[in-house]
């Protein structure tokens, strides 16, 4: 189980790679889904979820469930906000468009970009793909309330 001091650093401290890795892999739900840290850069983050049989939505196709994509996109939005040195309090809204089914048994990668911060709100875009970011499986647009803001 997570030691509280590490967790608090991951949630609120300056985001170095170790804290980012912790945020991606060490919450109970992301651990259960098998999320893997890919990268962070200024206001951007990336996460991978390896294909697994118990995460499938339709056993006839073998494609990862859209619900897994929802959690992946929500989490990569939070990661990119942390990579912009802000601290998300929670998601306000998250809009997801599913462009096409993922390839059967394919891993998914999500890229997030926090493109605007106000005192209280972070605006984020993200996409999920199965190998080619120019041919996404899903795209997302989200607004998050920030800790320290008035929301």
């Amino acid at each position: 189980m997570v030691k509280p001091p590490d967790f608090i650093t991951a949630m609120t401290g300056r985001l170095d790679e170790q804290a980012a890795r912790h945020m991606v892999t060490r919450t109970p739900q992301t651990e259960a889904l098998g999320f893997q840290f890919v990268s962070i850069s200024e206001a951007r983050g990336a996460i991978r979820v390896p294909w697994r049989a118990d995460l499938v939505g339709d056993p006839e196709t073998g494609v990862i469930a859209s619900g897994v994509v929802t959690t992946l996109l929500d989490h990569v939005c939070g990661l990119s906000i942390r990579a912009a040195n802000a601290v998300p309090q929670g998601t306000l809204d998250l809009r997801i468009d599913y462009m096409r089914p993922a390839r059967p048994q394919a891993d998914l990668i999500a890229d997030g970009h926090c493109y605007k911060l106000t005192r209280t709100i972070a605006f984020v875009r993200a996409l999920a793909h199965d190998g080619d970011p120019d041919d996404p499986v899903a795209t997302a647009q989200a607004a998050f309330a920030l800790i320290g803001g008035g929301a």
Partner: protein
Amino acid sequence: MSTETTPAERLAAFLARTPYIAFLGMRAELAGDEMTAILPFSPHLIGNTLLPALHGGVLGAFMEMTALAQLAVITGGPRPAKTIDVTIDYLRPGRAMDTYARAEIKKAGRRISSVHVEAWQEARAKPVAAIRGHFQTPTEG
């Protein structure tokens, strides 16, 4: 459809065929044609251990699965509908406790349906989250 199935059979078939529903631990109950989905609390659903709170993605996914289950109950095809888009509103933190959801099919189209879902915990009048979504009816054959 050539074979007649009851709503309860269609619901049971949808829940049983989806591995991700077992991963979440989601169940559903039917009272006539009204379905209530239940997400029993489980530690693996936590996204924030400090509060603690359910992962926002879990709430969104649970409501989306509720919409798909309700569509399976009323339309009854062997294949589940496909999600086109969802807009999730987060209204209150999802606490470390059981969550319930009900779906309202605003329009059941031949090809595309529009569904609203609300999820709550302690009180139905205080929803923790809601979604609006569009879902594509699978084409047969």
